[in-house]
């Protein structure tokens, strides 16, 4: 029997970085395809609470752009953190989904924007870290981090010990922009 051994080639195994942090983050996400049979179901979480007042966070877009222009140094923007090949792979995987369930949404989030965020904020493949600290997104499918309730995701700090924000995924056929506008305007009744 012939056995073909392979030799380790350090040059071949070296990760390729041909996409800067700025280039990576400037990619828009893609549109998605919905299935024919969409799951229906309302949130009945017992952890729901009602705010006393709801106001429009109007300056969020300006905050994002000011942060990007004034606080992110060129060094961080230009640092090579990802590869076009991996980016193409992520977009292709999301493109292959037909969205019919909340789980489909979560899978696409992991394959797309959350993997981009991780590439930009962590050093899994040896890419340079940004100068400011960023919390990382963690899927809480099994309920961890000692939180009350079960959000789908949390942001946890660089020490990995503290949750810094929470995030929940909904389906786009139930969580629509009209519904959110109604909440903002107090006309959801």
């Amino acid at each position, binding site marked *: 029997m012939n056995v073909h051994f392979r030799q380790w080639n350090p040059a071949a195994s070296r990760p390729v970085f041909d996409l800067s942090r700025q280039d990576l*983050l*400037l*990619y828009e*996400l*893609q*549109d998605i395809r919905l299935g024919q049979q969409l799951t229906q179901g*309302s*949130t*009945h979480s017992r*952890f*729901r*609470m*009602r*705010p006393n*007042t*709801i*106001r*429009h*966070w109007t300056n*969020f*877009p300006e905050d*994002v752009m000011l*942060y*990007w222009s004034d606080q992110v140094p060129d060094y961080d923007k230009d640092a090579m953190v990802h590869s076009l090949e991996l980016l193409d792979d992520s977009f292709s995987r999301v493109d292959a989904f037909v*969205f019919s369930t909340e789980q489909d*949404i979560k899978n*696409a989030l992991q394959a797309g*924007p959350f993997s*981009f*965020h991780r590439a*930009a*904020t962590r050093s899994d493949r040896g890419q340079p870290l940004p100068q400011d*600290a*960023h*919390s990382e997104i963690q899927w809480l499918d099994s309920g961890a981090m*000692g*939180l*009350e*309730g079960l*959000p789908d995701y949390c*942001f946890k700090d660089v020490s990995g010990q503290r949750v*810094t*924000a*929470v995030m*929940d995924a*909904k389906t*786009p056929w*139930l*969580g629509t*922009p*009209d*519904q*959110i*506008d109604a*909440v*903002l*305007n*107090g006309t*959801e*009744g």
Partner: protein
Amino acid sequence: MKDATNEAGTASQDGNHAGRLAVEQVYGYMVRNHKELGIITTFLGWVFLRRENGGRLFMTRMFACANLPRLRRIGYSLPTFTISMALYFFSSIAEATPDLYETVGNPPQLAHFPMAGVTTAAAPWIQPPLPREFHHESLPEGYQYPLPYPDVQNWGAFLMEPWGKADQLGPKTWVASLHAGGARKRVVVKLWDSWRMDPANRDKEVEIYKRLESLWGVDVPSLFAFGAFCFSHALVVDYIDVLLLAYVADVGSSLVG
């Protein structure tokens, strides 16, 4: 869109409104876990939320995942940034944002958060802390000791399994848990044998906890209940993981030693 202020409660809050239910759910996670920041995402749409003490919630409209005319036509707000940039910004401010505790009254006291019903009815408002008192109930058979939590309507059962070594914290202290539906909260139970001891030691600890009430949930555990439990004088406090402190103390003592 102009600034919108919705004094919640001016509009009907009942009914199966997926948007309201989603906002209530994420706001509930934020306020109960003392987090200032949150996100609702459908992949196609992204809503960013920030809360302030006093039950105040700030939220964006639903931004589209991409600058596509199709998404604008169906109501999405087209962003002047990419979602990846927004997440990068968000994770930076999240890292720098400390926990934010919800308080009520003057002097401020930590708020109480009743559980919502398993319905589509409006979620409860933030409440002042409930007066704390201990309720004693006759024990059922077996080794599981259910007793009502002071916030009785919120927690259905109290489970203590004193035979489990993992739950034993000392000669008279155990980890137990409060249960409500799928929710579970860990607590610490301290018991004094009432056949051999009067309640003075327990009462002294209760007085100390009461004096530290402004720090409950911040620097010291919250006192949940005290009273008689079967043949014991009992004290129930919040469970706080102090592994790190124990490690530091251990390292410190080994350096000194």
